[in-house]
């Protein structure tokens, strides 16, 4: 694929957090590419660096604490790391927008929901008249399935699912090219979750919006994403299309563990195969495979730096078990 077709291109991204006590290496040398209209599922355990990746794309890492220490991010042809803040601000909401995990806290409690949708429209379409904007607000509300007359209400008057719809409406109002959805449904029920994911997918299709869906639920990924990236301790350890990940025997041992650890609805089993051991310490800079401590296939070799290996046409794995040559055959 040529440069032009790519919406997002991340190379060797590293993110660090400076806390009072120590430095957390949240993302370590991440590469990622995403085309227009594509959906990428970003999976991984708590603390794997999923949110940090998303925040660095939209350049909202907590000020003074979180820093991109190396790498580059190209979004829609813009170098996100070396562009003035004002330009990036204008891109937020219009080119890229973000949906946060908890709808309860993502809405300002003292503003009406209508005003919160209106706000993003006003910023990015200052040329439009108030009436036009109002009409667009109504349209967005209807689009996410809430009667437009409720736009004068405050967030606390809405249920969790409705709030999340408003959040989605805000994110989609300016028809961005990329949506970063950071665990948008974790706080919701499965039934509502299904509704939301369906809604997002529909709108995405309609507007040809790309999306990075962050989650640790492989089930959600399976049902919504075309591409999948599995992260572990700040690194991408596996990357491929949904088919590559879900319908294959070639999986990174961690991904494998993840699949095994989930109780299956449609299979019987007595015992779950848990991944023993704990997450790697994020305050240590990695040397070699970070999963090695928990991996049953680990050998001394794993202590050396592991590159991403291409194991299929679109499938990459960061593990010495997979020989790139073999897969090419």
């Amino acid at each position, binding site marked *: 694929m040529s440069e032009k077709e790519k919406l997002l291109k991340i190379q060797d991204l590293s993110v660090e957090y400076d806390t009072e006590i120590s430095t957390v290496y949240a993302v370590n040398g991440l590469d990622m590419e995403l085309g227009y209209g594509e959906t990428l599922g970003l999976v991984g355990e708590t603390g794997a660096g999923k949110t940090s990746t998303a925040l660095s794309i939209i350049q909202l890492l907590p000020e003074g604490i979180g820093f991109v220490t190396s790498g580059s991010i190209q979004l829609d042809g813009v170098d996100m790391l070396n562009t003035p803040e004002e330009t990036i601000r204008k891109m937020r909401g219009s080119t890229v*927008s973000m949906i*946060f995990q908890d709808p309860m806290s993502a809405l*300002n409690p003292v503003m009406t929901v209508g005003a919160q949708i209106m706000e993003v429209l006003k*910023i*990015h379409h200052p040329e439009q008249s108030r009436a036009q904007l109002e009409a667009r607000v109504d349209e967005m509300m209807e689009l996410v399935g809430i009667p437009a007359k409720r736009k004068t209400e405050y967030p*606390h008057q809405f249920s969790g699912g409705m709030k999340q719809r408003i959040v989605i409406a*805000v994110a989609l109002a300016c028809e961005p090219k990329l949506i970063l959805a950071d665990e948008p449904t974790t706080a919701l029920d499965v039934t509502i979750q299904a509704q939301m994911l369906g809604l997002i997918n529909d709108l995405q299709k309609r507007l040809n919006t790309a999306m990075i869906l962050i989650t640790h639920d492989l089930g959600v990924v399976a049902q919504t994403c075309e591409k999948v990236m599995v992260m572990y301790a700040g690194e991408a350890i596996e990357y491929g299309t949904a088919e590559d990940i879900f319908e294959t025997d070639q999986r990174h041992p961690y991904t494998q563990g993840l699949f095994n650890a989930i109780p299956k609805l449609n299979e019987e089993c007595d015992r779950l195969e848990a991944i023993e051991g704990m997450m790697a310490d994020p305050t240590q800079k990695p040397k070699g495979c970070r999963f090695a401590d928990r991996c049953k296939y680990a050998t001394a070799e794993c202590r050396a730096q592991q590159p991403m290996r291409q194991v299929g046409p679109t499938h990459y794995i960061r593990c010495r078990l997979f020989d790139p040559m073999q897969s090419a055959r």
Partner: protein
Amino acid sequence: MPNLLKMIGKRIVQSCITILLVTLFVFFLIQLVPGNPVANYLGASATPEQIEYYTHLYGYDRPVIVQYLSWIGGLFRGTMGQSISYQSEIADILLPRLMVTLSMVVPAFIIGTVTGVLLGIVSALNRGKWLDSVISFFANIGVSMPMFWLGMMGMLVLGLRLHWLPTSGYVPMERDFGQWLSHMIMPILVMSLGVNAGFLRLTRSSMLEVIRQDYVTTARAKGVPKNAIIMKHQLRNSLIPIVTVMGSRLGTMVGSTVLIENLFVIPGLGSVMMNGISSRDFMLVANGVLVISIFVALCNLMVDILYGIIDPRTR
């Protein structure tokens, strides 16, 4: 809205109970203060007969509970009773003085709150930078100085050495506004400094708290410009805890006028209370505390209403 009305109703009932308790509390506490109001009024040359005569005249010879009840009864009939040391109806003494005090406290409060909140915002936005440290440091110095000491220094420097302002005294506003102002500048500034620092610290921490909220990040993700985020998203939400404190702070300020009025010779509620205590004019003191507590209750009520305006969740 009915929610808010209900809350206000509940608050009014609560305040009434509190005020009643205050009256009980103060009235009986006062009885424990050594000293005799009549003897104090009459001075050392009073004869026992004179003392007896006035004691009876003012009803100080009745049992305490009867005195209390007749005071409360009087309040409902619209009289606070007679002050022995001032020889007049207490309401006539307290109300004009309350006005004097308020004419000092309210501007001080407004100046202190506004500058405090503004500096707090500046401080929070520059957190960790030198400006933050400088502001915090001076704010802390502000609250750490004894108010009367600060007043003294002001008098010494601005009044005595530089002759910029009168050292003390009071001129009624209606007599000469310019004079009134020149006399009040110093006390108002001294009082506002303490408030300023308090609100500065509060605003700073409350802003910092709000900065971390998801909805602020959401707003940034929407591309809202920085200033709009501060004004529309951060400030209003961080005002909620600030408003809560405002009511009680205004009340405390009225209390601390005792010092300032004494120092700057301002005939307000604080100095009248001080006089009441030192001359053992029990009724005056009790009524003074009553007035202050009613004032505090009103402030809190206003806070509740403000709360309703700022925070739709309470409506």
